[in-house]
């Protein structure tokens, strides 16, 4: 075969649904283009200089005056006045892929800026190594491949929510169905009831768990919240309750520290921290007065716990609570108007992704350098291309592979 023949055959080779793919592609591209805001003319050089001088003056004013935190908060608002106009997310500041829940369904966003809609699902969670995503729809729990959206298995159930894939071998997926907690094997078999009466909070697998258990890993353990606010540690295979805490405020979420020594239960106004070994309450950290927690997560390493929440005055806070200390004092990372709705750690623990609904933006914040913030804007448009109705604000649902896949 000659070169010309090879060229001809490569150009003429039939591609399945070539025409349909082209037209589908055009609809997606056109919708994305319609959502794009054409760039405005850049400021002239003298104007840029004036802006720079004004910015420097503000920074100096903050540094040199004793007004303290209030001024810093003010400046933080001022230096991000155009978060709504910020560029869409085009990359991630740390390795990994982000799972995003949107009105259209879950997306997988890769570090290089590519993104893929997985399908018509509601919630999603990574498998331990990011090989699969467990996603829920009205009556199904489905395992799909994140690269292709290929459905691997699905089970029918009544309103499955809050799926969490067990770490380690990934042999179990826990999920809520109404007020019950259920567990299914990683291949979609052996779906069974674990607890018939749980609080509306996602379960949390012990990070070092292997399911089925090995002699080294111990039992396959899941933390779940009860309607009276008690936290229970349960063997997911036998259903045996390993320990149960006293009742308390109903947790919104549960999470494990990186080395499985602590279990945290975040409720609206406080964070309770339990010993994972026996369930003893180690400490209770009250959030600042008037703050209501919206989300929280343990750092992938160490014992710091990040919390986002809203305050009485229509503002939001992001805090970092160092739980290694005997009496943990929350450290304020960020304050802005509106609501911080979700927080997610990067797998390397260097970045916190905070969803800021009011600005339609996501903030990437390095807790070691809280002033160093990367802003991605137009998040609703980016993850709901082609929709004209106001879209629900997309939420990050896991930066693979944090917390051994539990996102």
């Amino acid at each position: 075969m000659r070169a010309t023949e090879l060229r001809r055959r490569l150009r003429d080779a039939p591609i399945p649904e070539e025409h349909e793919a082209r037209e589908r592609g055009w609809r997606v591209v056109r919708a994305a283009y319609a959502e794009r805001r054409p760039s405005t003319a850049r400021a002239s050089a003298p104007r840029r200089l004036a802006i720079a001088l004004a910015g420097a003056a503000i920074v100096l004013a903050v540094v040199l005056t004793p007004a303290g935190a209030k001024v810093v908060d003010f400046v933080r608002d001022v230096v991000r006045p155009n978060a709504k106009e910020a560029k869409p997310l085009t990359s991630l500041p740390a390795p990994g892929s982000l799972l995003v829940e949107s009105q259209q369904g879950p997306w997988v966003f890769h570090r290089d800026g590519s993104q893929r809609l997985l399908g018509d699902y509601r919630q999603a969670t990574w498998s331990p190594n990011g090989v699969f995503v467990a996603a829920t729809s009205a009556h199904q729990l489905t395992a799909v491949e994140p690269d292709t959206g290929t459905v691997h298995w699905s089970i029918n159930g009544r309103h499955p929510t809050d799926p969490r894939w067990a770490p380690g071998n990934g042999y179990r997926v826990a999920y809520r169905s109404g007020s019950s907690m259920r567990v299914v094997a990683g291949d979609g078999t052996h779906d069974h009831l674990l607890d018939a009466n749980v609080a509306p909070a996602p379960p949390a697998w012990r990070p070092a768990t292997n399911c089925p258990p090995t002699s080294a890993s111990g039992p396959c353990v899941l933390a779940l919240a009860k309607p009276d606010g008690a936290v229970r540690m349960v063997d997911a295979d036998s259903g045996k309750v390993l320990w149960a805490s006293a009742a308390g405020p109903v947790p919104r979420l549960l999470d494990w520290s990186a080395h499985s020594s602590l279990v945290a239960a975040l409720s609206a106004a406080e964070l309770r921290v339990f010993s994972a070994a026996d369930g003893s309450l180690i400490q209770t950290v009250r959030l600042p007065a008037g703050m209501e927690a919206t989300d929280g997560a343990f750092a992938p390493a160490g014992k710091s716990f990040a919390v986002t929440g809203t305050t009485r005055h229509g503002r939001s806070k992001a805090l970092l609570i160092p739980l290694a200390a005997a009496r943990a004092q929350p450290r304020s990372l960020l304050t802005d108007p509106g609501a911080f709705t979700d927080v997610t750690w990067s797998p390397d623990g260097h970045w916190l992704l905070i969803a800021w609904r009011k600005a339609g933006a996501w903030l990437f914040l390095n807790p070691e350098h809280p002033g160093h913030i990367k802003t991605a804007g137009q998040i609703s448009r980016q993850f709901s291309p082609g929709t004209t109705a106001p879209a629900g604000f997309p939420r990050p649902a896991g930066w693979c592979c944090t917390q051994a896949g539990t996102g």
Partner: protein
Amino acid sequence: MMVPGLRPVAAGPREEIQLAGETTESVAVPLRLARAGSPSRALERRRERRWIKAAQSGSEEALEHLYRRHWSWAHRAAYLVVHDAAAAEDIAQEAFLSAIRSLDRFDRSRPFGPWLNRIVVNRAIDWARARSLRHETGAEFEAEAAGAEPAAPEVASAVYSDEVVASLRHLSPEHRAVVVLRYLLDYTPGEIAKALDLPRGTVNSRLRRALDRLGAEMEVGQ
């Protein structure tokens, strides 16, 4: 065995390939296939620059010209590397979405196609590698989804009407990519090296090996 008549580094003038003229339909050939310096090529480049400028200013019509000019090549290149129709469609779509996100910063003096195709081919290689890794690591798969039936590779059941395309799937993604860039998109080895961020010698050796393997596979298939 080398495919008769094929040389990895073509030294002679490029084949004369019909230029699509004014059309922006998908049947148009890659812009670069027009002879370098030819009036047709210069005309096409000027027209593409106008489209890019207009698209940057908000013209959907100009964007559609660009899209229809480049989609088919991007899609086809992706398909020939990944051999999966759905993945190829996604890869081409994502490349265009990337282009839209970067449109304001795009340097109009540079051609659009090579920039787009670079994204497409690199992403296709990544996808194909990930796919093959998944098939190779059955143990990992089993650990993650105990007892589940592994999904059969789509390529295994696909029916190819062209034996060249069928034979391509026996090559590694990296080898498929150089064949696609060289013989579908008509890149020179130097341009392939730049697109894939490889030494030129590596490109030449990959081309040689790819063509040898392609020839062998086609011989087996006959």
